[in-house]
Each structure stands twice: as C-alpha cells, then as structure tokens.
C-alpha cells in the first residue's frame, strides 16, 4: 500500500480521540504521572503527555504483557481440566503517541513469536488487534541511537499512521497500512489534504554513532573477546534493561494454583539474571556476568540477525535510561565496533 499523506489538525486529533473512544476502542497514550511518563488509558487528547522523549517502559506490553495467562485449569482428585482463554475476546487497542522506535520494536518481537511458522497466538492476536498511531520525535537525548540501527525519528516502519507535528502545531498524518486507512476513511472529515511537507524539517537530528554493518559482520567472531568482562564489571544483574526494552522477549512459564484451580502464566524474564540458565543440578552455563552480558548483546546483534533476519535493537535508549548503574548500550556498542574492527 502506498503511503498517503494527510493533515490532521490539532483540533481534529482531539475529535478523533473522542470518536474512537465513543466507538468503544481502548486508547493508550503516554501520560505523565509523578515525573514518570508511561502508557496509560486516555479518553481525551489533553491527558496525553506533551514533552517527552520516550515512555519509561516500551509499548511491548500491549502485545506481550508482563503477565499472560496461557490457560486456566481445575484440579480434582481424578481429573485435570484445562480451560483455554478466548483470544477473540482481546479488545481492539489503539496506541497513540508511540514513537517510531516503539513501532519498529514489534517487528523484532514478531520475528521471535512467529519464528519458523510456529505462532504464539497470544502475541499474534494482540498485535492484530492493535492500531499504532505513532508520533515522530521532534527531539532526542544522548541515549537515543535509532539512526545507528536502521531506524529514524520519523520512520514509518511498524506504524499504521505516523503523525509528525509541523510548524503550526498541526500534524502531517502518513497513512501507512490498511488499518490506518480504515481510520482515515471512516473519519475522512478529520483528515485533510496535505500540501507538500518536508517531514525532515520537523524531526529530531540523531547522528549515527557507530557502523552497524561492522558490528553485524564482526560481532559473531567476538565471542572470546575480553571486552565483555570489562564492559560488564559494573552491571548489577537486575532485569531493568530487558524489561523496558521493546525487543526483549525472554520469558518464564510458571504454574500457580490454590489446590483446586489455577493458571499457567507466562511472564517476563531476563537473560541478565544470574539464575536464568541454571540447571537443576546446579550447573550454570552462564555463571558470570560477562557471559550474560555477551549473551544479551550477541543475541540482539548476532543471533537474531542470523536466525530471524532482524536486528534485536531499535536504538530507543530505554535500557540506558533505566539502568541503575549507567550501562550505556550505545557507548558499549561504539566501543565494541572499535574493538572488533581492529
């Protein structure tokens, strides 16, 4: 589908939010609460935060929630009854104000959850029911590096509609997918014809910091490099980076029950945790942090590119912002690129 350009006035966007809410859709947008900007349900555009780079957590929870019930069960003395979740009951969700990096993150997640034609339908159905109305970034900070990983503050990848604020406060609306077109058509009176607009004038400047090509070529051979030890010395082995990351998908499966009924749940996990790979025997293939740090970086920049043909990073910088000890991934990647190029 060719991308169609429209203009969405500020007032029209306000009306659009109201209309979509009236339709019964759930709308989530970045909302500021106590100094923290996170996705939350909104009913009016006014509730949406204005001045933010990205939300603290990514939007992945809308397709890959922090806890997903895989099925319920009932236990009796003689029998076990499994009760499945009705995936048709997943409501349509609109993500307004996601950034281009958020939208791009879903491609990486999708590559994992549909790898080799084995579909995790919880993820697939949630993504199907999601409409992403992303907003381009007019500013970035020192942690952003989307342009170094094939991204861009005004990229359309993964979004259904991309809004870019242009100089009179109104938005250039790029209608990208069929889902986006459906909205633009239904509310055609809100979407006006667009004149020629140079989008790039309104988008943040994010200089490229490292050569991705070098990293992708050389990192598979860097398994034994001593850099991993140096870089991971200050890491404290929490899961903050993995949990706020839009492309991290590692998960745990646990059963809980009260004796007669319960659930099997899938929840977020992190390869950075010390016990992530521990065997029941006590043997741990990744017992020191340098091995776990290496796994994290190589999974994103070596294994995923080779096995799933996607880079497992969108350069949003959330991991760096969320890290308690300043493990700045961008900085580490710059060092890595220099090191492997030697």
């Amino acid at each position: 589908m060719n991308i169609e350009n429209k203009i969405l006035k500020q007032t029209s966007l306000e009306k659009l939010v109201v209309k979509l809410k009236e339709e019964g859709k759930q709308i989530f947008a970045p909302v500021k609460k106590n100094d923290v900007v996170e996705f939350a349900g909104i009913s009016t555009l006014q509730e949406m935060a204005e001045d933010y780079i990205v939300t603290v957590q990514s939007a992945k929870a809308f397709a890959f929630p922090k806890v997903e019930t895989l099925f319920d069960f009932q236990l009796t003395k003689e029998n076990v009854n499994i009760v499945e979740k009705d995936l048709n009951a997943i409501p349509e969700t609109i993500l307004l104000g996601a950034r281009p990096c958020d939208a791009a993150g879903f491609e990486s997640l999708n590559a994992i959850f549909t790898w080799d034609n084995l579909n995790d339908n919880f993820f697939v159905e949630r993504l199907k029911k999601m409409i992403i109305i992303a907003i381009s970034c007019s500013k970035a900070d020192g942690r952003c590096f989307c342009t170094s990983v094939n991204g861009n503050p005004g990229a359309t990848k993964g979004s259904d509609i991309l809004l870019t604020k242009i100089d009179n406060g109104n938005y250039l609306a790029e209608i990208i997918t069929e889902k986006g077109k459906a909205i633009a058509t239904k509310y055609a009176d809100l979407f006006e014809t667009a004149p020629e607009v140079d989008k790039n004038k309104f988008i943040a400047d994010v200089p490229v910091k490292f050569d991705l090509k070098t990293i992708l070529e050389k990192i598979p051979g860097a398994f034994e490099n001593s850099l991993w030890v140096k870089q991971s010395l200050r890491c404290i082995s929490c899961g903050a980076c993995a949990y706020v990351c839009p492309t991290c998908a590692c998960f745990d499966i646990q059963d809980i029950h009260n004796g007669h009924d319960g659930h099997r749940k899938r929840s977020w996990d992190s390869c950075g945790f010390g016990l992530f790979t521990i065997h029941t025997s006590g043997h741990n293939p990744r017992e020191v942090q340098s091995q776990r740090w290496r796994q994290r970086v190589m999974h994103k920049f070596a294994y995923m590119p080779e096995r799933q043909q996607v880079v497992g990073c969108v350069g949003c910088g959330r991991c760096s912002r969320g890290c308690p000890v300043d493990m700045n991934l961008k900085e580490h990647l710059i060092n890595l690129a220099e090191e492997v190029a030697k």
Partner: protein
Amino acid sequence: MSQENIYKPYLMRIESIAEEAPFVKTFRLKFVNEEDANNFTFKTGQFGEYSVIGEGESTFCIASSPTKKGYIECTFRQAGKVTSALYRRDIGDIIGFRGPYGNIFPIDEWKGKNLLFIAGGIALPPMRSVIWNCLDLRENYKDVTIVYGAKSVADLVYKEELREWDHRPDVKLITTVDPGGETPDWKGKIGFVPTVLSQEVTTSDNTIAIVCGPPIMIKFTMPVLEKLGFKNEDIYTTLENRMKCGFGKCGRCNVGKVFICKDGPVFTLKQMKDMPDEY
C-alpha cells in the same frame, strides 16, 4: 492453526510406572483424548515438556520408540520441584505433555551401517528411543553394539531392557559399572565407560557412534572415538540445557546462535565443535 495455543499441553494418563533406579522412574503415558492419540506422531530423538499441572513443566526426551503405537514413555530422576511432583504421581493420574519438539536422529541416513551406542547412567533414556527404533527396523542396519555403564549396579536403568538386549543374538551388549560399583554376582564389566569402550571396540569402519552421558564421560569418550578413526560427522549425541518453552521463543537454551530445543537436541560432534564453549 490460527488461534491454536502452542502452550497448551496434551492430557496424558499414567498407565504404568517402573522404578528403574533410586529416584529414577519411567512412566508409560496414554493420551486421555483419543483424537490426540490418533493424530500424534514423533520421530526418535525428539523431546517434550512434561508437567504436573499446577507445579510446572520439565524437559525430558521421549524415551519410547515411535515404532510403538498408542503410548509414549519418559524416564526421569527426581531432582527439583517438578520432577519431585512427578515422582509422587500414581498410576491413573493425569499429567501434561507438550511436544514433540526438537530435531531427530537421522536413522534413515544410517541404513547399511554399523551402529555403536554408548551411554552412561541416566543418559540411557534419550538413547533408548533410538536404540529401539533401530532394533525394530533391524534389517536396515549391520552390527549393533551397545556399551552402557553406570556408577553402580543399582544405578543401571532399564534393567529389563538390558536383559532383553543381552539375550538378542543380533545385538552385542556390554554393560559396565564403575570400579567399586559392582555387586558380588555382577557378571558384566568393571571400569569406566570410556575405558571399557577402548577395550571392546576396535574399529570405526562404516560405523555411526551415538553417545550420551554426563559431561565427564563425554569428555573422555570422544578421544577414544577419535583414536578409533571416527569422523566428527559420524559421532552423534543429544544435548540438554535449561528450557522453558521448548520451541525457540523463551531465549533460554541457546549456545551461541544454536538453540538446543530447535537445532537440537541431536547434534553431531562436528556441529558441537562449531558451537561456542558455553554449556
């Protein structure tokens, strides 16, 4: 296929329980749902996620051969939360099974060759499936030799099967226990598996070796095989790692870019030498 829940297990009823060794049991499982039983197929080498629903899942190979219809078997040692819960199950109880996952032993490629199976201790279960599969298609293969050892006589699993293999004229079975593990009436060999292997096997000619055992056994067995002239691509093993999903999504079992659950668990030594040393 759309809307299918890949995390949902089959319900299996425990038809029989065999106590193999201290803390080691074999379950024979039948599908509760007949339609599941009719549709289910697997190939030798594959594994599944077995669960006590309510306690969690655990990864074991399918220990029975695909040539046996109507049931699957698994053998496990009580070690942690889930295996302890499994250990406490009774005949008639229902457990969960997800599978089959993983790749297979390429037994079709082995037609016309000699087969040398080498296993230690609790690692015989992953091999039992492929041994029986080959024995059930015995005419496809030439000489079949099984070298199996354990720490002590009590630790040998599948004692019934060992007796059966011992009595078959078309199988050469060599059993051994570690020095000090023998009982007064022990008639088999005494010695570590790699040592016994080097004494009993003299050629690698037209032979495929399939090895499974604890890391220390593998460490000392590989040099013996290499000395005998086995090529790396003719030595097979089955690996394990901590798993959760079993199908390549939870990000836990990979060694480098190789996912033990998807690219394995069956690997040749040649493939293993390409894997980084992190398992």
